[in-house]
């Protein structure tokens, strides 16, 4: 008896729970919420400290930069400043911050805020943690009045219109005593972007509300929630069930599993990421001290070229990326086609194990009696599908040229440790690139190698090459864009020729959204662009809810009524049931 009535109760509760959201929606005007699945943790909400992709993505929603990149073609467009003027010698830049733009708390945004932010970074080393590279060349920053900021640089700097620095409100941040300890989670967080951070529970969710004061106009929906998932499998399942509205960074197999699913639209975009295989070229510190324990054979550029030649990039793209990628070449992905470089026919390294074998023989590494030349370690990240699968391919390919690979897949942190300590021979890595190629190119300059203590600098591959460095300095002060493009391409050619790393593939960004909840998202660029991980916030800002009226009231009514009737019926039945049971029990006694 008891079992039966509790079972009834259980049914009633489940029905109650499933009907509850519908009832809640009846009372207040329903906020329209865009729910986004997220798997990467947040390192900090403080824009001066945040470096994770997830954190900077939220940062772009909270704060505008001085300039922005247009959604359709990524050209520089109005941010907080709407006009800018370099002096004739390119050393002084004058930015105009127009009146009328407001912080989310209603205070006006002025040139003082901009000057405050940049000066904070110039004076406080901690504030330079995340975006310090943009201001190292600054001589001074001053706001001459509420509308004008003047930035003086030590040398001409081409990235003056690509300063990816979130501008913070002076009236909030001047009270901050220690940037290092400030979490920036005093909700709601005052910002200038299209959304305002209102709630953050680490590892569970991040909630933002549309900024009604946003100078471009408020977003077309009310709230933006980021919901955490353990892995992308779970996120994809949630999308399929309609629990979230937007998912990105899907694996090819996951993307294909959503094909033809009702209410789901997929977006295959040209990504701005590339995956590479680092080849330790004999790592050294900035002062030339060798560090790490890379195989000395790899110092020979002929060996590195032979390794690159033995990798079948086409096979990797078609079998590991399942075709959702483009074959790797230069450091800048084809999505930025102006800067993208492809090797010419004379430079091209065709996949050719036989030629690679011959080159290794010629380089003085003959096969030993057991058929091997020398062994190498390959480090990758455990749990990343690409690394697990590609390492198998590489192991086979390398054994063809007599190099047995010892594959070690490790955790994220261990991978970081190994690559910064240069205790690798081969390692998987990857970077996201910006509209301006300066950052990705700077990673390979000699100056980016670590200091004597092994700290500082963010070298990618321990590359140090005089020719490359000379070209880097040239492009940094070349204001004629056509010429700069030429130099940037030369740099990529040099990198390709010296192979401190092999660019394996430019992965497509695979995204999907609930088109029954949100009809349209703004992609960047307009053709084949991404929704998430943009150089901007257009994807979230431009989302348009699908026919609200039809969805919220009309279609849910019958379900609600039905649910109510069923619950009422069940309650009546169970009460009657309990009564009868009591009655009979009483009679029995």
């Amino acid at each position, binding site marked *: 008896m008891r079992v039966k009535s509790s079972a009834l109760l259980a049914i009633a509760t489940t029905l109650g729970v499933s009907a509850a959201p519908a009832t809640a929606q009846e009372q207040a005007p329903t906020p329209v919420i865009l729910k986004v699945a997220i798997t990467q943790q947040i390192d900090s909400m403080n824009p001066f400290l945040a470096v994770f992709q997830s954190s900077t993505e939220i940062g772009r929603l909270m704060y505008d930069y001085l300039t922005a990149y247009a959604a359709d073609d990524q050209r520089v467009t109005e941010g907080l400043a709407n006009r800018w003027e370099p002096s004739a010698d390119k050393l002084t830049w004058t930015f105009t911050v127009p009146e009328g733009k407001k912080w989310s708390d209603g205070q006006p945004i002025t040139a003082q805020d901009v000057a405050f932010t940049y000066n904070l970074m110039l004076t406080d080393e901690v504030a330079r943690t995340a975006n310090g590279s943009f201001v190292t060349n600054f001589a001074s920053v001053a706001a001459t009045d509420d509308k004008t900021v003047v930035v003086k640089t030590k040398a001409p700097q081409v990235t003056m219109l690509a300063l990816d620095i979130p501008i913070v409100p002076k009236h909030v941040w001047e009270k901050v005593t220690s940037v290092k300890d400030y979490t920036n989670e005093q909700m709601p967080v005052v910002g200038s972007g299209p959304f305002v951070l209102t709630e953050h529970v680490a590892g569970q969710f991040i909630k933002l509300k549309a900024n009604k004061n946003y100078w471009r106009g408020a977003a077309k929906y009310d709230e933006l929630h980021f919901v955490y998932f353990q892995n992308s499998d779970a996120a994809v399942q949630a999308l399929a069930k309609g629990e979230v509205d937007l998912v990105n960074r899907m694996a090819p*197999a*996951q993307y294909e*599993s959503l094909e033809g699913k009702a209410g789901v639209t997929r977006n295959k975009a040209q990504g701005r990421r590339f995956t590479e295989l680092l080849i330790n070229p004999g790592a050294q510190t900035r002062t030339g001290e060798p560090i790490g324990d890379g195989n000395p054979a790899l110092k020979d550029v002929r060996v590195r070229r032979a390794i690159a030649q033995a990798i079948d990039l086409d096979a990797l793209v078609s079998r590991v990326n399942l075709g959702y990628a483009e074959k790797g070449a230069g450091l800048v992905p084809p999505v930025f086609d102006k800067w993208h470089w492809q090797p010419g026919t004379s430079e091209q390294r065709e996949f050719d194990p036989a030629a690679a074998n011959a080159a290794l023989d010629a380089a003085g590494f003959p096969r030993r009696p057991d058929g091997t030349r020398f062994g190498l370690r390959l480090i990758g990240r455990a749990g990343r599908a690409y690394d697990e699968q590609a390492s*198998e391919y590489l192991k086979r390919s390398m054994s063809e040229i007599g190099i047995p690979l*010892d594959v*070690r897949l490790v955790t994220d942190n*261990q991978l970081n440790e190994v690559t910064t300590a240069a205790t690798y021979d081969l390692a998987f890595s990857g970077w996201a690139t910006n509209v301006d190629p300066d950052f990705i190119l700077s990673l390979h300059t000699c100056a980016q190698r670590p200091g004597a203590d092994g700290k500082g600098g963010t070298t990618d591959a321990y590359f140090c090459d005089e020719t490359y460095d000379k070209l880097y300095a040239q492009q940094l002060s070349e204001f004629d864009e056509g010429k700069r493009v030429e130099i940037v391409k030369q740099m990529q050619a040099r990198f390709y020729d010296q192979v401190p790393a092999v660019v394996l593939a430019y992965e497509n960004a695979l995204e999907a959204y609930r088109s029954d909840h949100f009809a349209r998202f703004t992609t960047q660029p307009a053709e084949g662009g991404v929704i998430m991980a943009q150089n901007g916030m257009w994807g979230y800002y431009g989302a348009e809810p699908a026919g609200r009226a039809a969805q919220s009231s009309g279609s849910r009514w019958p379900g609600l009524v039905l649910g109510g009737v069923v619950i009422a019926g069940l309650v009546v039945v169970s009460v009657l049931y309990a009564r009868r049971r009591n009655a009979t029990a009483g009679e029995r006694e």
Partner: protein
Amino acid sequence: MTGFRTRWFSRVGRGDGAVGGFLAHRAGVAGAVVLAVAALVAVIAPLFIPADALDVTRVSDAPWQAPGLGHWLGTDHAGRSVALLVVQGAGTSLFVGLTAAVLSVGIGTLVGIVSGHFGGLAAGVLLRVTDFFLVLPALVLAIALSTVLPRGLGTIVLAIGLTSWPSTARMVRAQTLTIEARPFVERARALGGGHGHVIGRHVLPSVLPLVLVNATLAVASAIVAESTLAFLGLGDPTRISWGAMVHQAQLHGAVPQRAWWYLLPPGLAIVVVVLAFTLVGRALEAVVTPKR
């Protein structure tokens, strides 16, 4: 008094009695047959599998094919035949299971006999160490070990072996204590038998049957442990084992693809082999356990 010894010699020493006793356990025999087949497959089959069939760079079949005529267990994310993968994986799983079990039982026996025989301070220290390992969740410890040590088959064997010995040690110690309390050990001591003689000639032979049973059961749990670690992505990524197959199936999206043929066969293979080891172990236990 000497009943145990006589039984031991009659059953295991002479052989036929023990075999007869074992044959009486039908489930045990069935398990043994399954194991023999699995071992045969693990040893012989790889010789017949063409090298190209499991080489991701050479296979040309379409990935994610459902079971059918060409591949009767379907294909995986790279287009390799799942059936061949299962066969190939048998070797790794059995090898890791056996070596890890030998390592674990070896450590356990050593610690058990030493602490049981010598007693005193040595026993105290050894037992506290045993308790320490007994209290720690073995899986967590194994994960920690295989994270710290370089990835590979050896690490997995070590991680399982180092974490699963305490129960064997406890059991062997108890058995050692009972044996040493018997008059024949006392007589041996009185006649001048040293530690080596007592352990080597009296304790070890009497403990061995128990150790054997324990080893058989330990193989079963070691295979499961290997599969668990491999599933969690802590194994050697380029080596095919059943656990690694389940891991890859999960990693490459067999669940959203509804590719049950990639998940189920390695899982069932683990179940069958573990069951077989357990059956054999239980049957052996029934044969050799001294009945009083």
